[in-house]
């Protein structure tokens, strides 16, 4: 098992998203983009220049936007419906349920700038409920790629998959997490092996888990790190192995812990093989004003918080503290 290191250079996954969408549109005439006056924030400017007919900008109207996506899919198109995460999911939740998931239309919902990307703009602009909302919809695949390469692969996977997909495209800059295995929905990747504890990250929090594992190694704690880029369906095999091999699990997500990835992991393991867990994520609280970095620290989803949680679960560092 290779050990992944955290690269220094950071990237905005929206760049990979925009480039890949253009590739998909070049390769397949059916590909269309739908957006809500978000040509800029969804990084669709070049797409619009290249394929003006295949960019449907419905204006500031998210319910319409999702419905139009479903209608385009009915006509044999593959629509990528792009909007800021909180408005795509919250404003159009019933359309996502009825027109996309329940109708099982071939719509790809692209949630841009999720989590605390719009930190200072306040909780109305934070996309932290999306995992809980999307995960409860039958038929919906929920993806949150962790770096540019995985963003590319997840988009290609979504394009070839015939059915509803929710794609969380991060704006918070992330490092490359290579090496990669070919992306497949429902399969987590093991970025680092370990026997004492498993740290599970998703999207922007994977690098925090990986950095934390490095720090923990210095303290003699051998942490496994999993990139759970598919929130639904879960990689149950990886979870059973983590429970059996390491006995303790920390999940960390830039989303509400209630109903998010941590909940999903806990629900599954509770019924199969319960192990001590710590779920790191947004608490049942609207965020105070602050930058994305401040809010990550405030809610305890940064590297230091992962280290602390792992120490508590493994009992490491207690001797030193006493």
């Amino acid at each position, binding site marked *: 098992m290779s050990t992944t290191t955290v690269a220094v250079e950071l990237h905005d996954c929206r760049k990979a998203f925009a480039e890949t969408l253009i590739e998909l549109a070049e390769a397949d005439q059916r590909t269309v983009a739908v957006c809500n006056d978000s040509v800029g924030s969804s990084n669709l400017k070049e797409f619009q220049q290249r394929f003006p007919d295949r960019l449907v900008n419905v204006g500031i*109207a998210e319910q319409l936007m999702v419905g139009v996506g479903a209608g385009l899919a009915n006509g044999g198109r593959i629509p990528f419906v792009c909007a800021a995460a909180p408005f795509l999911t919250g404003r159009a939740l019933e*359309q996502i349920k009825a027109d996309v998931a329940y109708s099982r239309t071939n719509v790809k919902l692209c949630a841009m700038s999720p989590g605390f990307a719009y930190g200072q703009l306040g909780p109305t602009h934070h996309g932290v409920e999306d995992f809980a909302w999307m995960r409860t919809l039958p038929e919906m695949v929920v993806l949150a790629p962790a770096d540019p390469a995985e963003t590319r692969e997840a988009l290609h996977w979504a394009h070839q998959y015939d059915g509803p997909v929710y794609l969380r495209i991060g704006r918070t800059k992330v490092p490359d997490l290579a090496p990669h295995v070919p992306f497949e929905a429902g399969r987590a990747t093991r970025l680092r092996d370990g026997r004492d504890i498993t740290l599970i990250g998703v999207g922007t929090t994977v690098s925090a888990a990986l950095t934390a594992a490095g720090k923990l190694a210095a303290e003699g704690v051998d942490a496994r790190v999993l990139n759970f880029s598919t929130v639904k369906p879960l990689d149950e095999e990886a979870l059973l192995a983590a429970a059996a091999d390491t006995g303790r699990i920390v999940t960390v997500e830039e989303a509400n812990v209630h109903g998010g990835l941590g909940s999903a992991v806990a629900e599954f393991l509770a019924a199969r093989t319960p192990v001590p867990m710590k779920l790191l994520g947004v608490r049942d609280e609207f965020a105070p004003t602050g930058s994305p970095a401040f809010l990550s620290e405030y809610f305890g989803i940064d590297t230091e918080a992962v280290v602390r949680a792992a120490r508590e679960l493994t009992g490491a560092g207690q001797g030193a503290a006493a």
Partner: protein
Amino acid sequence: MVLAPVPSATARLADIRRELREAPPAKRAARLRELAYSIRRSDLEMISRAGQGHIGGDFSAADIVSVLYFAVLDVRPEEPTWAERDRFVLSKGHAAGILYSALAHAGFFPEAELATFMEPLSPLNGHPNRRKVPGVETNTGPLGHGFPVAVGMAVAAKLDDSDRRTYVLTGDGELQEGSNWEAAMSASQQRLGRLTVIVDRNRLQQGAATEETSGLDPLDAKWAAFGFDVRAVDGHNHEALYQALSEDRAIDDRPLCLIADTIKGKGVSFIENRVEWHHKVPTTDQTAAAFKELTAR
């Protein structure tokens, strides 16, 4: 679970459509009226048997649905997802009964299946499901969904440079949902000349008159202001509906809004225009009396 089409249904429906088109107006109207009352009778039987349903809104829309399925829509019951079919979206999804009845009469599935309406595990749920009922284009039920999806369908047709047409039927109370006005703005912006919105203007919603809740008048001026070609039509006049719905609008890039003046519960005297019949179920005696009225007409 999977509903199979009636053998030769496509050819039979195409024959009916051709005959109706070629018939003199009076004969065409008489035949469409007969079909509309036939689907009303099936709907009454379904609701009476199921003990549930939306008889008022079903009967209000019966003539519109009948004209669409038997005289206007280019659809193939044996090939329900044929790419070049015309699209019809029942946005007022609670009127599922009249849609199922029309689909069965058109041959998308056997009429005998109507007896399973709302039975456990029946594909014929109280609101239409595209994955279970052939001919249903999108799942509806919550209001204000159908029109936005129809806009997407019309955009897809335009991207394909196709002549196929998209029709959507909304309730008038349903227009209180703001998503419809998002769709109206977008439809005219995108010059969707082959999109037709039909408003079932029966002036009643579930619990009251539309004008007593969040009033819609002047409804024609609203649609005109949103860039639509607006026409009024008697929603129970089969020939008028046929003319309005079958017109080739290729030369006009404005979407069409047909405001169909209707009577909720049309066809049965004691159901007509009474708010409680939005989803009231007839007793055995009422069913017999209603059936008699629907047969006599």
